[in-house]
């Protein structure tokens, strides 16, 4: 599987010029308070990984990979491992950046708040990616882009309707009760989503006909 992970990471590395420019733009926007640092993580991570899917599709890599030893399984496994690797890397960068921004603005660094912001960001990002991956494996990247857009758009509208129509103050109460365990709960939920998404993607790939 190592080879497949290296392939995704080398592809990301090949795009380093573009990613560096993007990161510099984000840094500039964050320093000038135009964008919250916690947005960088999901944007960068999703974009980086989606670009690997696009390049794979362009060169029909999945076809070729399936002809390699354990290709179907390792193809999927590597994508999920590479995603975690990318998240860790971008998290480290954003954490350092957040601290630097606070120092730059002479604000005290609130590590507790920072930790919750970053973990929530990771959770939200991975959640989006874990929903996306099975859809990409099932429909292909082109159709999946539309499906994901519709899905996210639908979820936002549904969320809006629910917030407007129902009294959700009880959620706040529950959040207060579990606040001490919030980080652990988020980590556990992330792992559960990771495993569910991985097994669905794997099942799709194992049955796929080329």
């Amino acid at each position, binding site marked *: *599987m190592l080879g*497949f992970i290296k*392939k995704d990471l080398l592809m990301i590395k090949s795009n380093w010029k573009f990613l560096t420019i993007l990161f510099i733009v984000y840094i500039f926007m964050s320093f000038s308070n135009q964008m919250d640092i916690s947005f960088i993580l999901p944007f960068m991570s999703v974009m980086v990984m989606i670009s690997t899917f696009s390049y794979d599709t362009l060169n029909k*890599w999945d076809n070729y990979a399936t002809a390699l*030893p*354990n290709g179907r399984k390792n193809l999927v496994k590597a994508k999920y491992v590479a995603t975690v690797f990318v998240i860790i890397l971008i998290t480290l960068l954003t954490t350092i950046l957040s601290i630097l921004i606070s120092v730059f603005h002479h604000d005290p660094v609130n590590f507790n708040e920072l930790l919750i912001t970053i973990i929530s960001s990771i959770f939200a990002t991975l959640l989006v990616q874990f929903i996306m991956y099975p859809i990409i494996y099932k429909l292909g990247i082109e159709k999946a882009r539309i499906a994901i857009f519709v899905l996210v758009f639908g979820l936002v509208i549904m969320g809006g309707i629910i917030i407007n129509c129902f009294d959700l103050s009880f959620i706040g109460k529950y959040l207060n009760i579990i606040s001490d365990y919030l980080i652990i709960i988020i980590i556990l939920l992330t792992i559960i989503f990771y495993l569910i998404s991985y097994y669905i993607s794997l099942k799709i790939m194992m049955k796929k006909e080329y």
Partner: protein
Amino acid sequence: MNNILEVKNVNKSYDNFALKDISFSLPKGMIMGLIGENGAGKTTTIKIILNLIKKYQGNVQIFGLDNSQNEKEIKEDVGVVLDDSFFPDILTAKDINIIMKGIYQNWDSNLYNTYLTKFNLPNNKQIKNFSKGMRKKLEIATSLAHHPKLLILDEPTSGLDPVARSEIIDIFQEFIQNSECSILFSTHITSDLEHIADYITFINNGHIVLSETKDEILEQYALVKCRKDEFEKINKNDYLKYKKNVYDYEVLIANKNEFKKKYDIKVIDKITLDDLMVLMIKGEE
């Protein structure tokens, strides 16, 4: 186990195309050319052999093992070139070396680099900046560098100029020097096969027209060129197909010696695989 590859009674149906009862076998130390026009079923057959297509009827054995039950074990010893799929083209030849080390147990970086040098392929250039021929050579170098016992190549020489094709053919001949190794090689450039193939399997419209040794084919089959009056004397059972030209008839026969004894027709030419393919596909019965 004398056959490195055995395909038995393989059937696969699509809405507008079907592979029908495909059977052939490839002995050790031999090169088999899989020929047929575009859309005849060559790539589908190769995909079934490689388990890229899983739902089909029939049986495929490689190295005496079932291709789906022993997939990983088999693929460690199979080198592959597919028609239009490879590594993402933002990667370099150097990247492929790093990646493949983590995929094949027997990956040989030295051998890979030897092929890169032999083919004049740059290590640090992105594949997207390669010419079509360079890309094909890289695919072939990649397929050979883990010391496979079986090479399965879908159109490996398409897009190559005659010099590059000749280089590749030489590499295949070197590969086959090891009598344990075999090559299954689909192509529509049949002249390549006339140089190196031991067996020819001809697929047309999803079914096998013939699967024989190349020498048998070139020995037994022939192209008769005759006038209309001579053609009219030939019994329908004595030829396979014919083509009517402006001034003469081209007639495909399957038993040259018997034909010579039976008919007094002077022009009986040696057949090329191209003639055979064209007449079998386009000729009249």
